[in-house]
C-alpha cells in the first residue's frame, strides 16, 4: 500500500490517543512550545475510556499515599481550579460525604481522615449522623456517620477534555481523527509513525492510548509494559426532577477492590447512580445489563428512597483501563524518545492535567529543548460554551436558532457550532458528548427526525437516509 506523508513537517511530539489524558498532554506540550500532533483512531475524540465516567473531580483524598496517581490527582485538581475560568469550564463544588452505613464502615472513617491528611487534603472531617441528615434530608436514615470532603466536585466529562484539546489547537497543535496508529520506527533521531491516515514524522511519541495502551506499546516498542484488564462500570441516570434530592456527592466507604456505588448529581442536572466494577475481556463492549441496572436502581433507592418516584433517563457503561497493579504506569524510554502513559484507570479525568505536567517532566529529560509560548499573553484561551444546567445556557440568549432537543434544551446554534470548527463532530456520539442532544428523558422521541435533517450529509454513519434510496 502506498503511504503518503500526512504533512511534510516534523513534529516535536506525536501524541497517540485523544482521551482525556491525550488531550491534556497535547495541551501541556503545546503551551510549553512543542509542535504537537495528536492522532485518534475514533471518528471523534473521547471514544475510549473517557467516553463514560462519573464526571467527578477528585481531590485525591483517598488515593494511595505516595503513589503517582495521588500526586497526579492532587496536581491535576489544583491545576483544574486554576484554569477553569479561563476556559469557561463548569464545576459544582458541592463536596462529598463518605457515608458509613454500618459499624465496620464506621470503624474505617478515622483512617480515611488520616489518609486524606497524608495526601494533603486537610479540610476533611467526621460528621455525625445528625449532621448528615441535616445536610442531606432526603437520604435514608441508616447513616451512622460520614467523612465530609469539601473539595470533591462535579465537572463536565466531555467538554473539559474538549477544551484542553481546543486550547492546544488554538495554540498551534494539530489533531487527526479517524487515524489509527498501526506501527512505527525510531531511527535514533525521528519516529516515523504509520497510521490509517498516513505517515507522520516526529521527534517523540507519547502513548496515551488508554484501553489500548499495551497494544500500542507492542506495536511501537515491541513490549507491552503493562497489561490492560478492562473493568466495566455501569450507571443509571435519573431524570432532572431527581437532582434536587441530594446536594453532596454520596460516596461509600471503599471496600477491598472498588470504590463502590456513588450517588451524585451531574453537571447537566441529573442524578447518577453507579458505577459497578466488572472485569471483562472486551475493551470496547460497553453493554449494559438489565439485572445490574435493576440492582443499581435498587441501591440508589436504598440510599435515596424518594428516587423510586423518579424515572430513569439513561443507562450507560464505561470501561476503565485497569492493569495488574494499582498505580498508573507512566514510563519513558529515553533512548527511544518514547513516553508511555498507561493504566489511568479510574481517576484520569481528575488527574489529567497533573499527568500532563508529569509527562512534561519526563519529556524535559529527553534533551529536546523547547521555546515556550512566552510571555503568557501569547497563549490563546478559547472559552467553551458551557452546557451546565447551573450556568446560563444558549437557549436563554438571543439568536440561538431555537431549541432542537427539548429535554436537554439544546439549541440549533449549539448543534451548528459543534458541527463546525477544528474539532467538528463526525458522529452522533460526538455530537451527544458536545451538546447532549438526545441524551435526555425522551432519548430522541421528539428530536431525532429533526436531527437527521440537521446532520444530513455530515456523518459517516447517518442517523437515517432518504426513503427513496
Amino acid at each position, binding site marked *: 500500500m502506498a503511504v503518503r506523508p500526512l504533512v511534510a513537517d516534523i513534529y516535536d511530539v506525536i501524541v497517540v490517543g485523544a482521551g482525556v489524558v491525550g488531550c491534556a498532554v497535547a495541551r501541556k506540550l503545546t503551551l510549553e512550545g512543542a509542535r504537537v500532533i495528536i492522532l485518534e483512531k475514533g471518528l471523534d475524540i473521547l471514544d475510549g475510556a473517557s467516553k463514560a465516567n462519573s464526571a467527578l473531580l477528585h481531590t485525591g483524598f483517598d488515593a494511595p499515599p505516595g503513589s503517582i496517581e495521588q500526586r497526579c490527582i492532587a496536581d491535576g485538581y489544583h491545576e483544574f481550579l486554576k484554569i477553569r475560568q479561563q476556559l469557561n469550564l463548569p464545576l459544582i463544588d458541592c463536596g462529598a460525604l463518605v457515608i458509613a452505613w454500618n459499624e465496620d464502615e464506621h470503624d474505617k472513617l478515622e483512617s480515611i481522615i488520616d489518609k486524606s491528611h497524608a495526601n494533603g487534603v486537610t479540610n476533611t472531617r467526621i460528621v455525625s449522623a445528625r449532621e448528615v441528615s441535616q445536610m442531606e434530608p432526603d437520604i435514608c436514615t441508616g447513616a451512622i456517620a460520614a467523612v465530609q470532603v469539601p473539595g470533591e466536585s462535579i465537572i463536565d466529562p466531555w467538554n473539559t477534555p474538549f477544551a484542553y484539546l481546543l486550547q492546544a489547537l488554538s495554540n498551534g497543535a494539530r489533531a487527526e481523527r479517524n487515524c489509527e496508529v498501526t506501527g512505527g520506527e525510531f531511527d535514533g533521531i525521528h519516529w516515523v509513525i504509520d497510521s490509517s491516515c498516513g505517515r507522520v514524522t516526529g521527534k517523540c511519541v507519547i502513548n496515551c492510548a488508554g484501553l489500548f495502551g499495551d497494544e500500542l506499546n507492542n506495536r511501537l516498542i515491541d513490549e507491552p509494559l503493562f497489561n490492560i484488564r478492562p473493568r466495566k462500570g455501569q450507571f*443509571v441516570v435519573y*431524570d*432532572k*426532577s431527581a437532582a434536587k434530592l441530594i446536594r453532596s456527592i454520596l460516596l461509600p466507604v471503599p471496600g477491598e477492590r472498588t470504590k463502590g456505588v456513588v450517588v451524585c448529581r451531574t453537571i447537566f442536572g441529573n442524578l447518577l447512580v453507579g458505577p459497578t466494577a466488572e472485569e471483562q475481556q472486551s475493551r*470496547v*463492549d*460497553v*453493554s*449494559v*445489563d*438489565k439485572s445490574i*441496572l*435493576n440492582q443499581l*436502581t435498587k441501591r440508589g433507592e436504598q440510599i435515596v428512597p424518594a428516587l423510586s*418516584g423518579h*424515572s*430513569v*433517563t*439513561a*443507562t*450507560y457503561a464505561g470501561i476503565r483501563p485497569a492493569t495488574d497493579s494499582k498505580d498508573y504506569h507512566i514510563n519513558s524510554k529515553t533512548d527511544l524518545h518514547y513516553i508511555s502513559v498507561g493504566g489511568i484507570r479510574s481517576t484520569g479525568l481528575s488527574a489529567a492535567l497533573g499527568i500532563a505536567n508529569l509527562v512534561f517532566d519526563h519529556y524535559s529529560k529527553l534533551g529536546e529543548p523547547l521555546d515556550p509560548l512566552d510571555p503568557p499573553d501569547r497563549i490563546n484561551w478559547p472559552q467553551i460554551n458551557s452546557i451546565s444546567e447551573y450556568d446560563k445556557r444558549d*437557549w*436563554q*440568549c*438571543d*439568536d*440561538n*436558532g*431555537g*431549541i432542537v432537543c*427539548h*429535554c436537554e*434544551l439544546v439549541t*440549533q446554534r449549539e448543534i451548528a457550532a459543534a458541527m463546525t470548527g477544528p474539532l467538528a463532530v463526525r458522529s*452522533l456520539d460526538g455530537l451527544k458528548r458536545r451538546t447532549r442532544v438526545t441524551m435526555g*428523558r*425522551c*432519548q*430522541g*422521541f*421528539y428530536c*431525532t*427526525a*429533526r436531527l*437527521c*435533517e440537521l446532520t444530513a450529509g455530515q456523518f459517516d*454513519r447517518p*442517523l*437515517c*437516509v*432518504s*426513503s*427513496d434510496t
Partner: protein
Amino acid sequence: MIRPLNHIPDSCAVAIVGAGPSGLSAAIELKRLGVNDVHVIERESAAGGIPRHCGHPPFGMREFNRIYKGPTYAKKLVAQALANNVALHLDTTVVSLGRNGLLHLSSPHGSAELLAERVILCTGVRETPRSARLVSGQRPLGIVTTGALQSMVYLYDKRPFRMPVIVGSELVSFSALLTCRHAGIKPVSMIEANDRPTAWNLSRLLPLASGTQLRLNSSIQRILGRVRVEGVEVIDRNGTVSTESCDGIIFSGRFVPESTLARLSHLDVDPDSQGPVIDNFGRCSDPAYLAAGNLLRAVETAGWCWQEGRRVASTVHRSLEGQLPDSGEYIRVIANHPIIKYVLPQRLSINEGSMHSDTHPVQHHQLQLRVSSTAKGVLSIVSGERTILMKRINTLPERRILVNLPSSTRDMVDDTIRIDFNPS
C-alpha cells in the same frame, strides 16, 4: 437579560402550552366563549401535535364527523384555530412554570416571561425509550420510538433502517407497522410479552400478512451490535433464547405523559398517572394551572383529548368569571387496589355554593381509570365506611373505564374516597 419575544405579550388572560388536539380545541372553545386574550405556545415549528406525523386514519370522527389521516386532521384543527383568531406562537418553548401562572419561555430570539391569569397545560404523551426500559446491550444506531420513526418518515421522508423489529403490540405498534410499510421498511417481527396482542383488533392485524412475524410470550433480552443494530436476542416464556437478525428496533408504546414541566415545578404530580394532579374541573394544585389531553394520563385518542380540551376551556371560562368553587377544599380520590393503574381526577372539589348557578348546571363527577392487567370483578367507590357506588367490570388492560359519581359531594363523609376492586 429577559427581552420580549416577537408578538408575545408580558401578560394575557389564558396561555395554553402545546398546540396538539387538546390545546387547540381548548383555544378554539375559549374564543367561542368570548375569551379573547388566548395565546397558544408551541415548541415545534408547526402546530397540530402528534397527529402531524400519524400518516394514517382514523382521526376526526368526533371533531369533524369525518375520518382523516393524522396530518390532514392536524391541518384542519390548526385552520380552525386560525379562523377563530387564536394567537399561535410556534418555535417557542415553555421552559418552566412559576407560581400563579408565570411562564418562562425560550424562542430563537432568547428568553422571556409571560404572566397568564390561567394556564392550560396540554403537552401530551410520549413513548418509553429503550433506556428507561433498562434493556441490555450496547447503544448502536437504529433504535427509535414510534414517534421518532413517524416524524422521520412523514415529516422528513427519511428512514433509519430497512428491517427492524417492533417491540410491543399496542395500537401504536400497528401504527409503527403502517409507517414502516409506507416507507418501504419491512419489519421482521413484532415482539410482545403477553400471550395476545395488547391491541386485539383483526383489521389492525392484517398488515402482519405482509411478512412480519408476531412473536407472543416473548421479550427482548439483549440488543446486539455496537455501531449499528445487528440483531436482538429474544427470550420466550420457557426461557428459550433465540437470535433475530435486524438492523433496527422500534420501541413502541408504553406511553408516559410528557409531564416534565409539572415535575420540575411546584405542581403536584400523581405517581400513578404520572401526570399533574387535577380536580374535577381540571385544575392543578395551583389553580392558576389547568391540564387536559394526554398529559393527564397515558393514553387516549386524539378525539378524546380534543373533547377534554373543550371541557377544560369551559371551566377556564367559568373560573375567569369567578364561578368555580375554591380549589382549596377537596376530597382526595385514591386507587386502593394494585390492579388500578390510575384514577382521574385525583381530587373532587367540594361543590357547595356558587356552582349551582342555572347557567352552568353541575356536571356529574366522572372518574376515569384503567387497570394494568385483565380484570373481572367489582369496583366499589367507598367513602369512610360507606360504599357510594359499585360497578361490575370485565376488561382488558389499556381500556378506559368510566364511573359516574353522584353530582353532590354531600354523601362523601370522609376527606378521601377509595376505589376498591374485588375480583370474581
